[in-house]
């Protein structure tokens, strides 16, 4: 996982100031492709779709580079494009009824070979996660994807750190009560 350094940020800004879009874009892809994909995945709940959307996001970024004027930081700008792209995709999916972005996707995703839980068969996350309210689920997924960094989750979702902590607490509390209920049911 790559960490976005202040030096990279300055280098991107310097490239953009000189209208060197290609090197700026290369740096952006290097620093943000993983983060953008994880943010998209936390919103969409499907890896293949997240990767497609990540590609769309970077094409948008490429096209919009000359429009970036530094009113916000590079990361804020990129995350806002990512969230908008994902939300547009969700709306389109809702309108088309082509895909449902709730339980079936998350279940299918977790069951796919590429993403099978490793050694965690005692907890059936694919059946538990869809029962967690969406905003809490996004936070809990992103928190574990971003190496448990409250700050990174807050930046990516544009939420205050306190809200991230609250949502995470509620997500884990909901998961725990579902898990304990499930185990009690299994033992009965």
């Amino acid at each position, binding site marked *: *996982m790559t960490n976005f350094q202040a030096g990279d940020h300055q280098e991107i800004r310097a490239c953009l100031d000189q209208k060197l*879009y290609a090197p700026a*874009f290369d740096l952006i*892809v290097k620093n943000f*492709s*993983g983060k953008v*994909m*994880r943010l998209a*995945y936390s919103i969409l709940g499907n*890896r293949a779709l997240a*990767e497609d959307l*990540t*590609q769309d996001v*970077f*094409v*948008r970024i*490429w*096209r*919009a*580079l*000359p*429009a*970036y*004027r530094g*009113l916000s930081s590079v990361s804020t*700008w990129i995350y*806002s*494009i990512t969230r*908008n792209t994902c939300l547009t995709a969700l709306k389109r999916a809702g309108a088309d009824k082509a895909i449902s972005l709730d339980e079936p996707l998350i279940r299918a995703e*977790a069951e796919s070979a590429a*993403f099978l*839980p*490793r*050694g*965690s068969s*005692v*907890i059936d*996350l694919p059946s538990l996660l869809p029962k967690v309210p969406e905003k809490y689920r996004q936070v*809990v*997924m992103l928190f*574990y*994807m971003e*190496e448990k960094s409250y700050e990174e989750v807050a930046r990516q979702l544009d939420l205050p750190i306190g809200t991230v*902590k609250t949502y995470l*607490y509620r997500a*884990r*509390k909901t*998961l*725990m009560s579902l*898990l*304990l209920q499930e*185990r009690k049911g299994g033992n009965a």
Partner: protein
Amino acid sequence: MSCASFEELLLDYADLPAQERDAVDLHLTQCASCRQYSDTLSQLDVALTEQFSGLQPSELFHSRLHAITTSRSPLSAPSFLPELLDLIGVAGIVLVLSLILWKVVPIPEITDFVPIVGIVLPVCAGLVLFGIAWLGVRVYAEFKS
């Protein structure tokens, strides 16, 4: 303190102050039910870490992206709309300022105050509205493009 309260503290364990952490640790040595809750919470933590850590785009993603951004299709070319908007904005401001100067210079007599207000105020209001609209379009272009 009840076990339910300790369960809530366990959910927040990483962010607890040292004193509360010690209280939770002590309670865990004495309460089997809370110990079981803590073990389950640890299992959940491990499962979530295993499920979600290390997600990266595939190799294919980078090659596809490279192909798209290096293609000559107009869709992939960097947009020059902001430059165009800058030009229109600057030209508009110069035009409005020229109009104001043209109306104001030479400085009129005090008796001409009312007609001057009648001209300058609408022009200034127009300038402000134009500025707001221009800024709106620029912000829209930056954040939504």
